[in-house]
């Protein structure tokens, strides 16, 4: 009996220290997180500084930082209309984020790292945004079919994000993706 309670306490303790990483808030009860709180620039700002390369990434959270940093580079190239280079960085960013998503697959507006320190943790939303931009690039290259496949994947990711955390950022992204896809596809 003692062993059983010990195991139960251990399970509870693990969940508690994970913050909201392992919990799903009940649908409908979530507050809509405004864009000024959760947005791409804020995510970039939280992950600037020490650069993490894919080769250096060892812990699960390293893949988040790496994915965000690669996305920041992709965004710069996208704005400069350096599309083939941007595409490479978006793909690399998604590869890194996909590795992370195998272990932690829920977005969270206040992912607790330690003490009172939390971060915006939106791997699904970042993947969705990457798919949106990759689709736009592929469209300009005349690859309509590939572009649609990106947007479809993006829509799946954004819906996963919104299920865990309702954000204006996610809703706006969803709206964009839906508008790009013909209605029969979603």
């Amino acid at each position, binding site marked *: 009996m003692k062993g059983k309670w010990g195991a139960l306490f251990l399970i509870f303790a693990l969940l508690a220290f994970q913050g909201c990483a392992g919990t799903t808030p009940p649908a409908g009860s979530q507050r809509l997180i405004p864009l000024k709180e959760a947005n791409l620039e804020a995510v970039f700002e939280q992950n*600037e*500084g020490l650069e993490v390369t894919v080769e250096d990434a060892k*812990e699960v959270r*390293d893949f988040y930082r790496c994915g965000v940093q690669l996305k920041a580079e992709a965004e710069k190239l996208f704005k400069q209309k350096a599309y083939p280079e941007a595409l490479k960085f978006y793909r690399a960013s998604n590869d890194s984020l996909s590795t992370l998503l195998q272990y932690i697959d829920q977005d969270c507006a206040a992912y607790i*790292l330690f*003490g*009172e*320190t939390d971060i915006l943790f939106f791997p699904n939303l970042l993947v969705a945004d990457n798919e949106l931009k990759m689709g736009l690039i592929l469209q300009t290259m005349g690859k309509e079919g590939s572009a649609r496949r990106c947007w479809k994947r993006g829509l799946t990711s954004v819906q996963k994000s919104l299920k865990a955390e309702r954000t204006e950022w996610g809703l706006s992204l969803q709206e964009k993706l839906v508008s790009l896809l013909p209605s029969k596809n979603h």
Partner: protein
Amino acid sequence: MSTQYRSKGLISFRIDTKESRETIMKFLEKDPVKVPVLLDKTGKVTRLFGVWAHPTSYLIDRQGMVRYRAVGLVDWTSLQATSVVDLLLKEG
């Protein structure tokens, strides 16, 4: 370790995140250390280093590159730790 390696060029710091000077002083009264303690009042340094667990240690080489990171407690007197420090110091 800090004392042992100082003459060879190793400089050690402890960085405390989001705690007041008073809190740290109280802690140091109970557990004095010879290593300087730097205050990261806003958590900016912690964020820039991408720290996600306490304690996290970094070894930075003479060129300013982060060469080693350890998450969790480290026995800096262990053979594994000292060999890494020795290797970096030898690089010059």
